[in-house]
Each structure stands twice: as structure tokens, then as C-alpha cells.
């Protein structure tokens, strides 16, 4: 693993380990090692280095909220902003507990795209009306409530 123009350069084994962990992060170092034909200590060392360098940001779990009776409302919110205020709006949105993702897009105009969750539609509307619309620089907001999810996967990385 080398630093190249601030980006961390991974070798072929690092990529293979990441791919194996993205498919199933619960497998042991030995299982990953066996699959890749290397010692478990090598896998351990590589993972530790990638954690230390921030390549692996965190270990988490993916919960099926429906199965435990938590039917949240998920929505994609597009916030049109005054370009001078967009960074501040994005920062404020990032700090809200209802917000899961914040991205920026510059197509015809500057947009902030936000994934937001709430217990129900009333709570969602209340959050947008009381916490988002009043932010300095917010010009208008379009919100789409997700009614059916067809596919949701994290990207499986491949070695370049």
C-alpha cells in the first residue's frame, strides 16, 4: 500500500481482500486467507493497515428494518440552493439525525441531493418544513417518497 498524490494505492491482494469483505465482512481472517491462498496473518496485517489509513472506514451491519416492524418512510430530497450558501446548507443537512446521505450535483443548477428517513409522512414533512426550508439559501425543495425498493446494493469493488 503506497501513498500516491494523497490517494492510497492498493496492490492486487488488498483489492481482493476488500472485495471478499464487501461480499461478507463477517468471515474470519483464515476464511479470507484460504479463499485467496495467503496466510491469515497476511490478511490481518493488510486489514489493519487499511483501517489505519482510513481505506476501511467502519464495520457495520445492514438491518432489514421491515422484518423488525420498523417501517420507516425514506425519501430523496432535492434541495435547490443559492450557490453562495450551498456549502452551509449541505453542512447543516449533514448534521441532522434524519439525514442519511448528502451529495451535491451541478447539472443545470446546483443541487443538494439528500436521503432522509422519518417515522411517517407527518414527521418527514415537519422535518423539511421546520429544519430544511428555513435554512439560509434554500430556494425550493422537491421530495420523492420511496414507495418500493427494487434493488439496493453497495458497490462491489473490482481490481482495476
Amino acid at each position: 500500500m503506497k501513498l500516491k498524490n494523497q490517494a492510497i494505492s492498493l496492490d492486487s491482494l488488498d483489492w481482493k481482500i476488500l472485495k471478499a469483505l464487501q461480499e461478507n465482512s463477517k468471515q474470519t481472517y483464515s476464511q479470507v486467507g484460504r479463499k485467496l491462498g495467503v496466510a491469515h496473518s497476511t490478511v490481518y496485517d493488510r486489514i489493519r493497515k487499511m483501517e489505519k489509513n482510513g481505506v476501511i472506514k467502519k464495520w457495520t451491519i445492514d438491518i432489514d428494518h421491515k422484518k423488525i416492524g420498523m417501517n420507516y418512510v425514506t425519501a430523496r430530497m432535492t434541495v435547490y440552493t443559492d450557490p453562495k450558501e450551498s456549502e452551509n446548507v449541505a453542512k447543516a443537512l449533514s448534521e441532522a439525525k434524519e439525514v442519511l446521505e448528502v451529495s451535491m450535483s451541478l447539472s443545470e443548477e446546483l443541487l443538494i441531493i439528500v436521503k432522509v428517513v422519518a417515522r411517517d409522512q407527518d414527521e418527514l414533512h415537519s422535518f423539511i418544513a421546520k429544519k430544511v426550508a428555513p435554512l439560509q439559501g434554500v430556494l425550493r425543495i422537491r421530495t420523492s417518497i420511496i414507495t418500493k425498493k427494487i434493488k439496493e446494493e453497495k458497490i462491489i469493488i473490482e481490481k482495476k
Partner: protein
Amino acid sequence: MTPSSPARILRTLSRENAFYFFTSVGNYTGHRAMSLEEFATKIREVPTASLEFHFYRGDFEKWTAEVLEDSELTKRIRAVKLLEPAGNNLRDQLDFTVSKRLEELKSTE
């Protein structure tokens, strides 16, 4: 409860207390009212879909009661509900009700 003074009802509000006009859940039109006077103007400008959305959710009454603290206007908006107006009829009814109340408050200030 003591009625609020005209000056109190007519004050300019903070951004947090302004009324934000939406057309449906989460869809903000970009129009907001930071005083009763602005609210009267916006009623004539916002899409009718926005008036219908807020009117039948009770958002206008909630704002006039809790933020503007105008119990008289709240009572009059509730009375409009009995007529079940829609579209431009709703706009006209609200415009008449709010503008009349605004004039009264301004004349007694």
C-alpha cells in the same frame, strides 16, 4: 387568555417561525411569509395546490394561533373550512378573510 396586541400580531417573524408554502409532503414552493402582511400577499401568489394542501391539514390555523397568536383570525379561517372551498374559490375566501383581518389590525394599531 388575553388577546395579543395588533403590534404583536403584525410583527416580523424569524426565519424559523415564518410560514413556508408547500404543495405536498416535502415539496417546498420557495414562497414564505415572515409576517401577516406577507401572508396576505402570498395567498394571492402561491399555487392553489399549496393553499389546498395547507388548508385541509390545518396548517394555516396552527400558524395563526401558535405563531402569530391571533385567535380571531384562527377562528375565521376555521369558519371558512365549513364551506369546503377548493381552487380559486379557496384563494378568494382566504384572501378576503386574511386581508380584512389585516386591515382591522392596521387600523387599530
